[in-house]
């Protein structure tokens, strides 16, 4: 068996070698910056700042091969070590490099959802860096709990390309959960550093104020504060779980009449002016209502591309202006130059997709099909998507009515035209 394995490995290596003959030397994988954010602002266009941000991130979080954590993050180094680095197994059969083995080809080394296979998927894989997760038990703006991430790994996400990882040993799943949190926190710190650089640093009178916590203790403190705020958000997730009250929740042993009543009440709410579900999910429930909005991940890219188009237009208008001074011309040239980098970044982005409201008649529930999962979605909306919640307006009884109605939709006759009608079956028998 071992011999066989070795020869398979050799053959694969040979194949890989042949395949990559045309490539330059291969570097160890490295975390990359969010270039959309880097080139969106005015200041961070400067590559010096990009380098400094990358250095600080590396200082705090390490590299894909050697993740490091500061104890304040609450992340478990040994779990991260299991998930990070190249994939291999030790003699005892313990697996390492789990992230690269199972996740990286979609979610990418940096957790940006831009692995090599990501472009071909619909929906696109999740970008962990903004730390916005759709399928969770907590309120819209909160982070998911560890259990939530765990659930997604165990059940996969039906209706997407995310498979279940239920067959992995539980320790490995735990390690992947930790690594996803790690990549998220890292992404959040990157955003915070980018904002800080844009807000506070820059060039003034020819002097560049560097992002340099090494020589500027004040910046060091600020970075620690940023990190503390990020970690606080994750720590607080457990307190922000949506837990419906026991008294108002429907019982398991309801009679068919009671269920029908609840479904009917839910139907009225669904198409009513209070809950307004139909405006997006459509008067048919097929998701054919409002389809013009975007998920935040797509929207960020769309705004970026729109801004490039606008800036192109503005520059063009600028050149057409009368009596341009030398200063004006220099300014326009500088802006043109800044656009080059942005266009290059834009060329790497995937096509922007609209957020299409869910077709509720298919019975595919990405966030889980338990009534509690659907309840939470209706209560607080779906983070990162246009889906709003209605929990502040409706009572829990009303929310449960909508849950009952939504869960009954796939079984309505209209959803299953292939099913024989009862009266026809009666004729046949």
């Amino acid at each position, binding site marked *: 068996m071992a011999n066989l394995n070795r020869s398979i490995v050799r053959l694969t290596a040979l194949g890989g070698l042949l395949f990559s003959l045309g490539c330059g030397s291969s570097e160890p994988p490295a975390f990359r910056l969010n270039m959309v954010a880097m080139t969106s602002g005015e200041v961070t266009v400067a590559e010096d700042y990009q380098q400094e941000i990358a250095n600080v991130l590396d200082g705090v979080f390490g590299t894909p091969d050697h993740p490091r954590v500061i104890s304040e993050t609450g992340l478990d180094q040994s779990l991260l070590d299991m998930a990070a680095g190249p994939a291999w197994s030790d003699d005892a059969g313990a697996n390492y490099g789990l992230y690269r083995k199972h996740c990286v080809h979609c979610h990418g080394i940096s957790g940006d959802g831009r692995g090599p296979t990501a472009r071909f998927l619909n929906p696109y894989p999740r970008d962990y860096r903004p730390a916005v997760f759709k399928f969770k038990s907590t309120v819209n703006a909160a982070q998911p709990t560890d259990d939530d991430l765990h659930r997604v790994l165990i059940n996969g996400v039906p209706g997407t390309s995310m498979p279940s990882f239920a067959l992995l040993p539980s320790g490995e799943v735990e390690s992947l959960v930790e690594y996803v949190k790690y990549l998220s926190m890292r992404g959040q710190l990157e955003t915070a550093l980018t904002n800080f650089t844009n807000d506070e640093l820059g060039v003034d009178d020819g002097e560049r104020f560097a992002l340099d916590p090494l020589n500027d203790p004040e910046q060091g403190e600020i970075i620690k504060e940023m990190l503390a705020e990020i970690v606080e958000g994750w720590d607080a997730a457990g307190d922000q779980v949506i837990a419906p009250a026991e008294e108002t929740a429907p019982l398991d042993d309801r009679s068919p009449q009671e269920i029908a009543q609840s479904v009917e009440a839910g139907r009225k709410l669904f198409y009513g002016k209070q809950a307004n579900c139909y405006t997006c999910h459509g008067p048919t429930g097929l998701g054919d209502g409002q389809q013009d909005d975007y998920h935040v991940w797509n929207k960020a890219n769309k705004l970026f591309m729109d801004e490039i188009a606008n800036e192109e237009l503005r520059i063009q208008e600028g050149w057409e202006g009368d009596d341009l001074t030398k200063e004006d011309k220099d300014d326009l040239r500088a802006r043109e130059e800044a656009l080059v980098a942005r266009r290059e970044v834009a060329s790497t982005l995937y096509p922007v997709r609209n957020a299409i409201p869910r077709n509720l008649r298919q019975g595919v529930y990405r966030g889980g099909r338990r009534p*509690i999962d659907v*309840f939470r979605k209706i209560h607080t909306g779906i983070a990162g998507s246009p889906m709003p919640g209605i929990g502040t307006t409706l009572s829990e009884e009303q929310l449960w009515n909508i849950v009952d109605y939504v869960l009954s939709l796939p079984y309505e006759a209209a959803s299953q035209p292939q099913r024989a009608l009862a009266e026809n079956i009666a004729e046949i028998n």
Partner: protein
Amino acid sequence: MNRFWSLLFLLVPIFGVATFVLAGQYNIWLPRDVSTHGSTIDGLFMFILYLTGAVFIVTELVLFYFMWKYDGGKNKEKVQYSHGSHTLEVVWTIIPAVTLLFIAIYQMDAWASAKMRAPDVPIICEVTGRQFNWDFRYPGPDGELYTVDDIVRTDGKLYLPVDEEILLRITSADVLHSFFLPNLRMKQDVIPGMQQSMWFKATETGGFDIVCAELCGWGHYKMKGRVYFMPRPEFEAKLDEMAREQNTRLVATAE
């Protein structure tokens, strides 16, 4: 370099036979059979293997012999062109044709019982392949699929009772997949828009592999699952447990 090429080609039958002889020792032979019909499939497999194996060895040896005998380096005689032997052509066309016909007839019953004679039992689970997971839908207490009480699982674990006829319905949500249960000697391609059936009877409890046997995209290798066979009462209890979980409305808050 004397006779190099003929000896090199002799390695082909030697390696070919050695692979099969040693496969068992390296655990790359057929996986353990835990089904009632598996022995039929394995019997067919072994019959064809021995038959083709014998032909393979004879053919290879003949090839070797000719290469050895007519080695260009050793033979100084002028090459003579031969049109071949009509009788021989007829013989080695008819013998394989008869053999293939025999196999076709011989396996008919096995094919029919695996693919045509579905048992008259209700569908116990619907298996849906999607890129890149096997999803399972149990009909629930009313025994009918696509009703409110269906139990849907996406965690790649299929639970089934042991020692009874199992009828599965298999579909695809997107592209071609193939639902493969190696330990049950069962494999069925699934085609989007079509419903396929699969039936078998497992003889052992325990967990066995489910794999996708049709390249279905970049995540094909991830389409693994596990089928667990258990006594009927345990299976019922498992269904109950899954139904309860699916009906969760309240959670204990960690306070």
